[in-house]
């Protein structure tokens, strides 16, 4: 696997475009499996597979698969490489079943539990700091999409360059450690947001002491109860939204 076979740009672009629809036919039986097969179809056609061979290839890529929708691109890249190298169906089956778990766990950690709430906190902070609502939303979208698209496109390239050896390459990226750093920033931002909500005149028009006490109590109970939950940041995010909604209703 030393020489990376060139993948025609047109094929690569079509796979990457189709990868945006990876969950378009999500179901309990194969989950993202059909989406994976749909995304890889341009490559299978490029390889000249026909009739029975094409059906077999689509079949093996449509088997059960589930990972994070953005990081699935790493698997798509590696699977494209395996198909280019003419890997056996058995290698492909085993690669698929080994890669889905780690990619799912990494994506949950990095995107859902860290980057999404972090970007949301930035957007909310901007909004309550007096930036217009439209600009706050735009800032959220640009910030969130930057990592989203990076994961998709660089992930695909990483997968294609590495094939089955993608494990050590992913480890080098130290995504988990970066997510931990992101979580520290997130806590800092949430703190700033809480401060802004509790004290700023512009935000809620000033709050009574009882509301402040309620917010502190909610935060503390989240802190105590939250750590027992599977994804503490998920609870934090939900708590934050509920809190803001309450305040918003009161202000309105």
């Amino acid at each position, binding site marked *: 696997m030393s020489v990376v076979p060139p993948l025609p740009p047109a094929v690569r672009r079509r796979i990457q475009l189709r990868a945006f629809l990876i969950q378009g036919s999500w179901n309990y039986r194969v989950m993202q499996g059909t989406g994976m097969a749909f995304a890889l179809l341009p490559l299978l056609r490029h390889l000249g597979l026909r009739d029975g061979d094409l059906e077999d290839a689509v079949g093996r890529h449509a088997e059960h698969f589930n990972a994070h929708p953005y990081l699935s691109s790493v698997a798509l890249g590696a699977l494209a490489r395996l198909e280019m190298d003419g890997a056996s169906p058995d290698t492909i089956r085993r690669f698929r079943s*080994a890669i889905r778990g*780690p990619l799912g766990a990494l994506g949950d950690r990095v995107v859902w539990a860290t980057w999404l709430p972090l970007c949301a906190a930035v957007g909310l902070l901007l909004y309550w700091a007096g930036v217009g609502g439209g600009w706050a939303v735009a800032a959220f979208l640009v910030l969130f999409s930057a990592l989203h698209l990076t994961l998709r496109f660089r992930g695909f390239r990483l997968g294609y360059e590495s094939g089955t*050896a993608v494990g050590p390459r992913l480890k080098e990226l130290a995504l988990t450690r970066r997510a931990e750093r992101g979580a520290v920033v997130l806590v800092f931002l949430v703190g700033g947001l809480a401060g802004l909500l509790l004290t700023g005149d512009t935000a809620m028009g000033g709050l009574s002491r009882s509301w402040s006490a309620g917010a502190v109590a909610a935060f503390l109970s989240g802190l105590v109860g939250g750590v027992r939950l599977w994804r503490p940041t998920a609870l934090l995010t939900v708590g934050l939204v509920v809190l803001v909604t309450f305040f918003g209703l009161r202000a309105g």
Partner: protein
Amino acid sequence: MSIVLLRVDERLIHGQVVLGWGGELHPSRYVVVDDELAASEWEQDLYRLSVPDEVAVVFASVADAREAVAGWRGDAVRTVVLTRDIQAMAALAAGGALEGMEVNLGGLHHRPGRDEVSPYLFVDEADREAVRALVEAGTVVSGRDLPGAPRVPVDQILQ
């Protein structure tokens, strides 16, 4: 005894195991019993990605695991033992090496010829045969995906 969980799961090491069960049981060692995996380094690298650096991951063939299992039960390291199918777990339990322990069936997914027991548990006749072998070897078998979920009793699996 320090085997804290015996689990059959086609996905082997993944989120439900590391976060769901790992968060509850705090193991310091995962043992994956699988002949193909024990011989395949790139696959081992992939499965290791899901586990924090300070937790050990051991890959063993069924034969090696049969010799080592008494040691895992005896030493002080909190260990989770995973197999991909019920047959491998039954091979491990044969002769009573796992007597008195609970075997957790956590993820056997849809495949042609398998019958649905629960959304995460599909078994065929060969699987049921292996469950009977496990029961005969003195283990208690039940289905359960996560620690907080209700158990699916063995009678329901054998139906």
